């Protein structure tokens, strides 16, 4: 499988804290990659380097390279806005804007200069269909996004991310605040989306990683311990630390 993200000898420091240590990783295109590991292992930090969300953290220092489609995202001539258009993100808590459903989805495309109502209508419909929310909201697109349930709000956030046609979608524990049914809907959605997008997810739910992802990466203390096809990692992990963690005998 071709890789879309290449991480090479990546070190990340928060002041003196060495949060990521010499990380080397390839992330395959149009597949789901899950990052797992205990709290503080660096998995969310790494996710956030992929769209430069760590830039805003004081005292952060990054060495090594993160290449997306062959381009180093930390090069000076990279526009972060362009990068984040290419690399969308969904967070743990659904965070719709206090606007209508329609305006939430149209927000990004408008920001990137699309004005035509017809074009925006098309983008909103396509994005909501892709995020499996269209059938539930098509008759009241003008209603406030905040009137939706938590699971619907999260799918709206996915639609909002998809509206700018990214290549990559980052999901940072995107289902951990949702009930099991909403979680299942999003997991199914992820399976559909991987036909068109590369998905990288951080999850605390190992069984979710096992259910949803094609590749799983296990992190410990800022290092990649093991990166493997999911079915291999969950059946015959090569490293005993991976086995201990996924078997719940860790600590």
């Amino acid at each position, binding site marked *: 499988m071709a890789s879309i993200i290449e991480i090479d000898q990546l070190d990340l420091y928060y002041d003196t804290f060495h949060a990521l240590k010499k990380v080397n990783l390839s992330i395959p295109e149009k597949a789901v990659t899950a990052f797992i590991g205990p709290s503080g292992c660096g998995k969310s930090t790494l996710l956030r380097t992929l769209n430069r969300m760590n830039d805003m953290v004081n005292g952060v220092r990054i060495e090594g390279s993160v290449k997306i489609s062959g381009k180093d995202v930390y090069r000076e001539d990279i526009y972060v806005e362009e990068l984040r258009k290419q690399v969308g993100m969904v967070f743990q808590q659904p965070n719709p804007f206090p606007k209508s459903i329609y305006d939430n989805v149209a927000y990004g495309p408008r920001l990137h200069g699309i004005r035509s109502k017809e074009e925006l209508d098309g983008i909103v419909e396509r994005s909501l269909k892709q995020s499996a929310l269209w059938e539930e909201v098509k008759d009241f697109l003008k209603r406030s996004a905040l009137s939706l349930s938590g699971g619907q709000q999260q799918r709206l956030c996915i639609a909002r991310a998809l509206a700018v046609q990214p290549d990559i979608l980052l999901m940072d524990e995107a289902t951990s605040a949702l009930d099991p049914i909403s979680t299942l809907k999003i997991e199914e959605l992820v399976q559909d989306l991987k036909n068109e997008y590369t998905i990288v997810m951080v999850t605390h739910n190992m069984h979710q990683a096992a259910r949803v992802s094609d590749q799983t990466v296990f992190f410990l203390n800022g290092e990649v311990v093991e990166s493997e096809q999911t079915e291999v990692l969950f059946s*015959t992990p090569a490293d005993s630390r991976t086995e201990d963690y996924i*078997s719940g005998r860790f600590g």
Partner: protein
Amino acid sequence: MIRRTGFDQQLEELKNLLKNMGSHMVEALDLAVSSLQNMDADKARRVVEQDARLNAMEEQIMEIGSRLIVTQQPVAKDLRRILVAFRIASDLERMGDLARDVAKVTIRLEGETLIKPLVDIPRMTEIVRGMVTESIESYLKENTDLAYKMAGDDDQVDHLYSVILQDLFKYISTAPEGANQAMLLVMVGRYIERIADHATNIGESTVYLVTGSRPDLNQ
């Protein structure tokens, strides 16, 4: 290190149940073959009656294992421990059935005398008995070397079975009046040979448990 005490205890219980099943199975094999050697139908009936114990233990293993899968969502080696317990339990249950089949031959021959003293059947039984014991030991100690060594003994069993087959067919051609008993003794040889195949399966389960790959030791 976080421990999953309750889970680990239940996994240990599965192991102990299989150990007990193994002991019962070996006991059934011994009783069945000695019932035939001594033409002791009462002893044979005991084997038939006691087969229910093995069936019940197999069910108990299935029940505990299923419950652990549902409640503990095991992965990797933990999952293999349970899958392997299922497979070994069903091998041992089948081995018990085969020992019972040997005992049933004794019951069918009740009142007759043996056409000839048994020589190769007890020899074969001795080897198979060793294989069963070693297969269980290889599982309990997770010893793959022992599993492979044990599986190698199956060649001797197959050889003895073909000797038994030839001898008894020769006997039938010279003394057709004993054909009925000779055929039943051939079947006894076949039952015991099948027990060895199941022991080999247990060796395979051991290798799968330890390595995660499925070898074929039945070659």
